[in-house]
């Protein structure tokens, strides 16, 4: 029976080293600005959390095997090899202390995309058997049960019933030829069922045809989090199969950050062919409906609201203005955090950190950066559009005894819809 070994890990590192990676490593000027952009380094003050250092295993393979100096060093016996012990040590750096928020990629003065390389380095970590237990079990569950939390359709069916009885509307399931296929994240199904009710109301209000699919309802992708393209591709294939079966032209990724980047950006590359449909984040869809005048709202929230931009959405995908347009529709006292949009600070839980129980303490430490940002503008409530961010904000604010409730943007829109006669 085959197993995950160091050799497979090293081969994966080699296979992942492409022209951008080589260019990035050779152009690093060791300025340390990436450290100044990383909440894990800033809040702990521990230099081992400097983003570029987290890439050391990949960098060593590059230097040893892809550069002239590395080869000369090899002849002289001066190479520093990548060993199992090293990878074991780096596991914490690559998983527990990196939410792949990509802020380091933004600030790097020579343009090195560090988050891109973290993603690549994780490929080698998985192949060498050095991924954290929490993410390994989430990946196994995602493949075997269809959901990283082990959730089944029957749980969702119960939630659907609740939504239908409380809204008096029907939640369409397996409707062929609908305009949108709606995906959910397990986290939403369990923790935030308000989301499903909200889109049911909004789509009914706007006259949008949509459907859930019993074949695949899960949008999240544990393969992206752990950093393995085989797992990730299988999960994307499920979404593609469901969308093709129902012949939908558009697929909606839910209020979840990585699910969106997984399906929208990595997906077609993972499966090696283009989609027959287009992918949107729910916030993009809502803003399109707003612009087309299909969402009519009444009343506005009067309290002081601020917003957390999920990294995957704002920094990595450029969805920044849409959520602000929507806020303007329903809030009269909205104030942005000082650094927002593409330069926002991560909540500390993304990139698989929240599925990795071992990282709990570190995750809360990293949250302090967000906390300081929130304290600066002192809102009465926070709004966000990612279930992972939302959970982290709720937990974090509670840990620090800050009474600031967190709301999902979609729900807030649904609450202000003009009632039909």
């Amino acid at each position, binding site marked *: *029976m*085959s197993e995950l070994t160091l050799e497979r890990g090293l*081969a*994966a590192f080699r*296979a992942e080293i492409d022209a951008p990676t080589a260019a990035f490593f050779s152009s690093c000027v060791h300025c340390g600005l990436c450290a100044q952009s990383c909440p894990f380094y800033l809040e702990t003050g521990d230099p081992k959390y400097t983003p570029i250092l987290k890439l050391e295993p990949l960098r060593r393979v590059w230097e040893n095997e*892809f550069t002239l100096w590395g080869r000369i060093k090899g002849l002289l016996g001066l190479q520093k090899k990548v060993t199992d012990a090293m990878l074991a040590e780096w596991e914490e750096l690559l998983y527990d202390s990196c939410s792949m928020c990509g802020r380091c990629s933004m600030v790097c003065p020579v343009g090195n995309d560090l988050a891109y390389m973290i993603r690549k380095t994780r490929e080698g970590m998985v*192949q060498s058997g050095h991924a954290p237990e929490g993410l390994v079990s989430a990946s196994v569950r995602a493949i075997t049960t269809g959901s990283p939390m082990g959730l089944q359709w029957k749980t969702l069916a119960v939630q659907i019933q609740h939504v239908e009885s409380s809204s008096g509307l029907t939640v369409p399931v397996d409707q062929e030829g609908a305009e949108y296929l709606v995906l959910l994240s397990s986290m939403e199904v369990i923790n935030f069922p308000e989301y499903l009710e909200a889109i049911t109301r909004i789509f009914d209000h706007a006259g949008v045809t949509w459907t859930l699919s019993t074949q695949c309802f899960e949008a999240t992708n544990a393969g992206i989090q752990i950093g393995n393209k*085989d797992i990730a591709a299988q999960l994307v294939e499920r979404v593609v199969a469901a969308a093709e079966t129902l012949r939908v032209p558009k697929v909606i990724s839910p209020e979840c950050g990585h699910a969106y980047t997984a399906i929208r950006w990595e997906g077609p590359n993972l499966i090696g062919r283009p989609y027959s449909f287009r992918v949107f984040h729910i916030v993009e869809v809502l803003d399109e409906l707003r612009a087309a005048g299909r969402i009519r709202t009444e009343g506005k929230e009067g309290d002081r609201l601020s917003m957390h931009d999920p990294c995957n959405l704002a920094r990595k995908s450029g969805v920044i203005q849409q959520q602000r347009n929507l806020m303007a529709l329903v809030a009269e006292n909205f104030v942005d955090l000082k650094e927002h949009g593409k330069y926002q600070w991560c909540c500390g839980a993304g990139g698989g950190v929240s599925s990795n129980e071992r990282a709990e303490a570190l995750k809360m430490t990293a949250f302090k950066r967000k906390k300081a940002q929130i304290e600066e503008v002192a809102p009465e409530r926070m709004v966000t559009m990612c279930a992972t961010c939302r959970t982290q904000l709720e937990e974090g604010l509670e840990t620090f005894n800050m009474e600031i409730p967190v709301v999902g943007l979609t729900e807030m829109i649904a609450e202000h819809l003009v009632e039909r006669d």
Partner: protein
Amino acid sequence: MRKRPDKTLGESLRDHGLSRRGFLKLCATTASLMALPPSLAPAIAAALEQARRPSVIWLSFQECTGCTESLTRSHAPTLEDLIFDFISLDYHHTLQAASGEAAEAARFQAMEENKGQYLVIVDGSIPGPDANPGFSTVAGHSNYDILMETVEHAAAVIAVGTCAAFGGLPQARPNPTGAMSVMDLVRDKPVINVPGCPPIPMVITGVVAHYLVFGRLPELDAYHRPLAFYGQSIHDRCYRRPFYDKGLFAERFDDEGARQGWCLYRLGCKGPTTYNACATMKWNDGTSWPIEAGHPCLGCSEPKFWDAGGFYEPVSVPLTLGPTTLLGAGAAGGVIGGGLAAMARKQVKQDAATRQPVTVDELEQKL
């Protein structure tokens, strides 16, 4: 009639019909011009209100009058007029009404009455002390003698234009007149250089205004240029910079890249090594500037810009190496780099081809 520096600026401006509001607006403009925080505008107002209009003597030597032409094409409509009311311009070949002996007498009178307090502005380079004094004379005296005589009791000297600041065109090889810059000759007085061929008019007036407001010289760089205007390179503030970053260059003046407005670096733009304010202040009332008009920056505010290689040769190609050496080194590098790259590519391909997919079973073993 020559204005006598006996009124304060505030009085003088009011005599010219400038309202209090207009005056404060001017102060705010001056603050922004000198890259000072707007909160300083009241301080500027107070300082200007009280300041005595200093006497200014403008000396023109080996020059083309382009700097004066620039100055008269004022950027903000009223500002330069006001600056002329700020100062008492007692001697200026092009602008003064007097001529002949009356003109020279005016210079001597100004020097006598304002001993130790007057400003000297110089445009044009000067044939040095060892050169033939006859190369450039005014009223029968050599430029060198006039300069030395005039700066002796000056408070400070402002060298306007690249010729005065760095020698400029007259000093370009082979420098037939032995031209020297003001900085080369005046050692015991503060010298501010305002280079450019010509300098931006607002920069000339901004430096004078700074001196009036603060009673001292602005902060200078290594070439004695005021940092407020010469602190950033053209390249760093250029609106075509995104094309440079993307590697999109015009290769010829009539190609598609030129029409698309791409970066002019390969057409010889000296923006990366030139420090000046053109990219932000622009020319002709903020209308445009050379790069916006489609021409590479010549680097006119830098020392020795006439001798710094051809205007149309890109900056980073070292001019001391011949094309053969360059080609040879390039080819050798290419072969080595190409060999390594090919080896690396083969390795990546091999590893990608023999890649074992990760399975759930394998993952489960780790739990």
